[in-house]
């Protein structure tokens, strides 16, 4: 009798130890990979599935988007459209046409006053393309703005054309978000399915768990320091942030950020950061990315009106840090402030 008890107890000990080892072993840390492209960092963290192959493939997809949209690579579709400005329409791929169409739909929200793919020549005046920063003369900005409006682009399902020979488009405001769309479409079909994939492409996020996870904890970066101002909880999502704190220059104590307000031609000053959380729907990576600029160039009042109009169209919520540093959230997200944790 005693021997039996000891034996059973010993089995329990071994069993418990083995179980705890298996639990520990079955949930290894994510495989993290870092890549540099599109003038920024791509970090992929994958748990489960063939993680190494998934990370490599996601990088390859991002490279493909860079080759298609780059302002600088001569063979890109953007470069071809720009080179033919003022001439004949250029034949473009269906993917590129779809991206331009999605971006044009965001421009149309307020007639290109807050997001404009054709603002590139004004950004160049400020030196944001060459990193040779300067403050252009007011007259120079006005003269350039004349051919930088959102109406410059004529689009069909197969062609694109810029009306003015001096007009240029830059897809920098949607390309990273679009790359997340392409990645999400691939992740949905890959077998075996990974448990979780977190993609951080220059601060734009894709949180993927095949719909399993409903409590992703998304930290919102403090625009005036390191650390976070707080976090929001969300299911699988695209998260796009536009901020004035990563690409900017200072002159005489004033900050000039890389996001140009298309209605004035000057760097936007109404907000420090905007984070747009979008549901996983086709093209919502790109749309969320572009909407970040719309909200970044809008006042609090305009933001509320805009958000009312787009509720139920895939935008889950928006976190706003305005120019005075005040934090607020629009939509179905609750911003839990770091100090309240």
């Amino acid at each position, binding site marked *: *009798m*005693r021997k039996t*008890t*000891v034996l*059973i*107890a*010993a089995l*329990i*000990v071994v069993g*418990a*130890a083995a179980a*705890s*080892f298996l639990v*520990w072993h079955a949930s290894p840390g994510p495989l993290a*990979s*870092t*890549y*540099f492209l599109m*003038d*920024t*960092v791509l970090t992929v963290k994958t748990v489960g599935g063939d993680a190494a192959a998934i990370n490599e493939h996601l990088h390859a997809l991002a490279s493909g988007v860079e080759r298609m949209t780059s302002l600088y690579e001569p063979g890109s579709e953007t470069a071809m459209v720009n080179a033919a400005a003022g001439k004949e329409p250029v034949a473009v791929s269906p993917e590129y046409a779809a991206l331009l169409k999605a971006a044009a739909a965001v421009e149309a929200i307020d007639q290109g006053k807050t997001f404009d793919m054709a603002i590139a020549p004004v950004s160049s005046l400020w030196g944001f393309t060459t*990193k040779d920063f300067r403050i252009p003369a007011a007259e120079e900005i006005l003269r350039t703005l004349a051919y930088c409006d959102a109406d410059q682009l004529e689009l069909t399902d197969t062609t694109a054309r810029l009306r003015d020979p001096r007009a240029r488009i830059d897809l920098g405001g949607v390309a990273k978000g679009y790359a997340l769309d392409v990645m999400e479409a691939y992740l949905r079909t890959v077998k075996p399915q990974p448990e979780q994939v*977190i993609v*951080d492409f220059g*601060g734009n*996020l894709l*949180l993927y768990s095949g719909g399993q996870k409903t409590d*992703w*904890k*998304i*930290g*919102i*970066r403090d625009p*005036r*320091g*390191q*650390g*976070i101002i707080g*976090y929001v909880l969300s299911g699988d999502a695209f*998260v*796009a*942030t536009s*901020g004035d704190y*990563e*690409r900017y220059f200072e002159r005489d104590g004033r900050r000039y950020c890389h996001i140009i307000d298309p209605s004035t031609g000057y760097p936007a000053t109404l907000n420090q950061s905007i*984070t747009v959380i979008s549901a996983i729907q086709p093209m919502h990576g790109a749309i969320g990315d572009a909407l970040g600029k719309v909200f970044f160039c809008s006042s609090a009042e305009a933001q509320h009106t805009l958000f009312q109009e787009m509720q139920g169209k895939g935008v889950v919520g928006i*976190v706003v840090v305005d120019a005075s540093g005040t934090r607020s959230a629009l939509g179905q997200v609750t911003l839990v402030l770091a100090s309240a*944790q």
Partner: protein
Amino acid sequence: MKRGDRITAVVLLIAALLVTAFWIFTHRTPGIRAVVRVDGKVVATVDLTLLEPRTLHVQGVLGPIVILADGKGSIRVEEATCPDQVCVHTSPAHSPGDQIICVPNHMVITIEGRGTSIDALAH
């Protein structure tokens, strides 16, 4: 309580202790540290809980980078040869999850360790 029952109880208690000890052992996290990577490969690790200031010289893709750990728990980029100087202008990093990135040099400093409570950082 029979003698056999007592032995069972003791053995179960030991089992529970062993499982707990094993769990703590496998889940323990060291102090806060800064990990410096170039092209994804770790080139330096600094324990930020140490009180002595330290200067690191790291070779980036573009050129040398001087990194300063201040001995008060923060780390920052002191000098770099990149054209935009984004990394030099980035606020000092100190909390788990903080990052300093130099794209032209393919260099990322990440603060790792206890206290990373978020899944991802929107920035």
